[in-house]
């Protein structure tokens, strides 16, 4: 096992690569930041319950993963969402054969950083790394310090995208452990509207550390519906940052499903910069076996008259471990804010562990806020209801678990995504001993 310092030295080597995007200003800044930062340890408050054991025990950072893949297997994995514009990244590298987005590419809506024109370069330089300062997060600094490619999704003023945009991040590695990095910048100009699906997936055992950043900037009255499915193999490690900036009257809605893995960490940061903006964060996370999943959410209400609704549900079983940290921060001038956050968990095993911490910090006096968390097991009254209808206890338990998760999944605003999520949930539940009846019910 490496020390955190040795891990940092390994990571440092990834930063020294020459970037081909010499016009990009962020990498130099992020590299300098990275040099200043320490790798988190147990003593780092934000990482208290999430040790980096998986990274310290592997040599992920010694090399960058290759972009080769079994195309037909990959096509099956990525092709279930019907009519979409699709970009597939294999270990962080765009795979043209699996992708199809020429319409939106021609319209200038989807652009690789390496193809960006002057105006787009200017936009990227102005926006990237501003929703979230990389100095707050060592993995963000690593990501932005080694950018060799990225995607810009840019919806022009009043542009309404008809088809959803699907971004697939496929991790695959049979041999040596390796690092895969990716990043996307979404810019919704005034009055635009976009639907974005991020699918994080893998083919088989995956000896990869995926370090990803999604940054979103919505201008006045822009809308983004954002669905995120993290359904990779449990062997992978994944650290993910999602950072959102909301201007006047913009509307951001996230629906997430995430399975645990060797290490999984999701940071979500939402900044309200203009009034009358709205943000919904819906999420459901599941962990089993020895998986780990950590959700860190932070909502910065910096201006008046903005609302947010956050509902995260956790399903935790076996010897797995989950973390939920959800913070609402209402600044002094953010009067007339209405913000609610709730985390509800089903903890099914004595060996499993959940650390949940909803936080509310309020410096304004005219606001409506609530926050709460609960940890429970299956409800006896509900189980009895099933049994009184002839359904045996084990099936009743399985159906209640399914219902708990499905309550979030059925809110995904896209039928094809719901189908895909349910199919993969059935696989997830299939090898949880207590729940092996579940998948036969659908």
């Amino acid at each position, binding site marked *: 096992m490496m020390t955190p310092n040795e891990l940092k030295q390994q990571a440092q080597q990834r930063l020294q690569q020459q970037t081909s995007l010499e016009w990009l200003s962020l990498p130099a800044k992020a590299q300098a930041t990275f040099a200043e930062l320490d790798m988190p340890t147990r003593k780092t408050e934000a990482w208290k319950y999430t040790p980096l054991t998986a990274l310290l025990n592997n040599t992920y950072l010694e090399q960058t993963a290759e972009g080769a893949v079994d195309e037909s297997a990959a096509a099956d994995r990525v092709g279930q969402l019907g009519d979409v514009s699709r970009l597939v990244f294999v270990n962080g590298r765009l795979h043209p054969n699996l992708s199809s987005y020429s319409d939106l590419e021609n319209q200038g809506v989807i652009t690789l950083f390496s193809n960006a024109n002057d105006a787009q370069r200017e936009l990227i330089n102005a926006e990237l790394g501003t929703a979230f300062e990389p100095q707050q997060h060592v993995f963000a600094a690593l990501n932005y310090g080694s950018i060799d490619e990225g995607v810009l999704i840019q919806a022009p003023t009043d542009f309404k995208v008809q088809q959803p945009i699907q971004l697939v991040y496929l991790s695959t590695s049979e041999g040596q452990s390796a690092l895969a990095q990716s990043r996307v910048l979404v810019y919704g100009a005034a009055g635009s509207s976009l639907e974005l699906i991020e699918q994080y997936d893998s083919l088989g055992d995956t000896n990869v550390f995926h370090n990803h950043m999604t940054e979103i900037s919505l201008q006045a009255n822009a809308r983004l519906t954002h669905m995120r499915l993290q359904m990779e193999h449990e062997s992978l490690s994944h650290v993910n940052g999602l950072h959102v900036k909301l201007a006047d009257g913009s509307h951001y809605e996230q629906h997430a499903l995430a399975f645990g893995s060797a290490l999984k960490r999701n940071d979500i940061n939402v900044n309200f910069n203009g009034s009358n903006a709205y943000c919904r964060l819906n999420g459901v996370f599941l962990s089993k076996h020895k998986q780990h999943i950590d959700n860190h959410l932070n909502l910065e209400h910096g201006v008046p008259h903005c609302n947010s609704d956050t509902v995260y549900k956790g399903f935790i079983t076996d010897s797995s471990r989950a973390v939920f940290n959800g913070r609402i921060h209402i600044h002094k001038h953010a009067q007339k804010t209405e913000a609610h956050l709730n985390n509800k968990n089903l903890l099914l095993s004595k060996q499993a562990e959940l650390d949940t911490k909803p936080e509310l910090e309020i410096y304004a006096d005219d606001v409506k806020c609530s926050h709460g968390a609960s940890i429970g097991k299956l409800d006896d*009254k509900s189980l009895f209801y*099933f049994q009184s*209808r002839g359904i045996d206890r084990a099936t009743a338990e399985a159906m209640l678990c399914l219902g708990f998760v499905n*309550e979030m999944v059925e809110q995904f605003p896209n039928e094809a995504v719901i189908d895909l999520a349910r199919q993969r949930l059935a696989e997830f539940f299939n090898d949880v001993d207590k729940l092996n009846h579940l998948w036969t019910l659908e």
Partner: protein
Amino acid sequence: MSKTPLLEVKDLVAAVDGKTILNGISLTVYPGEVHAIMGPNGSGKSTLSNVLAGREDYEVVSGSVTFKGNNLFELEPEERAREGIFLAFQYPVEIPGVSNMQFLKASVDAVRKHRGLEELDAPTFMKLAREHCKELKLKPEFLKRGVNEGFSGGEKKRNEILQMALLEPSLALLDETDSGLDIDALQVAAEGVNALRNEERGLIVVTHYQRLLNYIVPDYVHVLADGKIVKSGGRELALELEEKGYSWIQ
């Protein structure tokens, strides 16, 4: 009328958290009979229903219950349901995320399997469920919603009747199915129940008010107070109670 009772309750005493709630109840129901159990709030009506259905929270202190000649207490709740006991709950629970259709199908599959019948395929089952919905004046979308999730009081009660219709029990216990229903909904629910009445089936109708008994006419009426049956009679007893109030029997 057949000579073997469907249900025979003898001197039943039951408690919750060490507190005795049923104080020696005896009741015999033969196939084809409809019994009404009336009583003030807190008299133990729901407790009796739940004990018969097998709710674990209630401890059976003494007494016996035989159902179709077998000791009921040896059966798990799900086995009782498969054998033909059905409880329409006073307060049906909401189960978000599990669709009503999924729930009904799992339930009917389990019960049919036990009774040696073939599982219904999905289209046949859906058709059957929709027909029953129509009779109960429930919209078909109702089947797609989460079990009882956001249902009105009346919808929840009709959903219980829907389940009963699909499960075809031999003994149905209706726990205050009338409470919270307006007169139209009450009639619809009562018609649903009456459609199931036959020579073999037994029915126990638990109610606070006699109103429901205008629509589901009972053969016998029992008055429960403080966990005991204090008076039994024919259907005229219900009318008398209505007129004189519960204070009359206490």
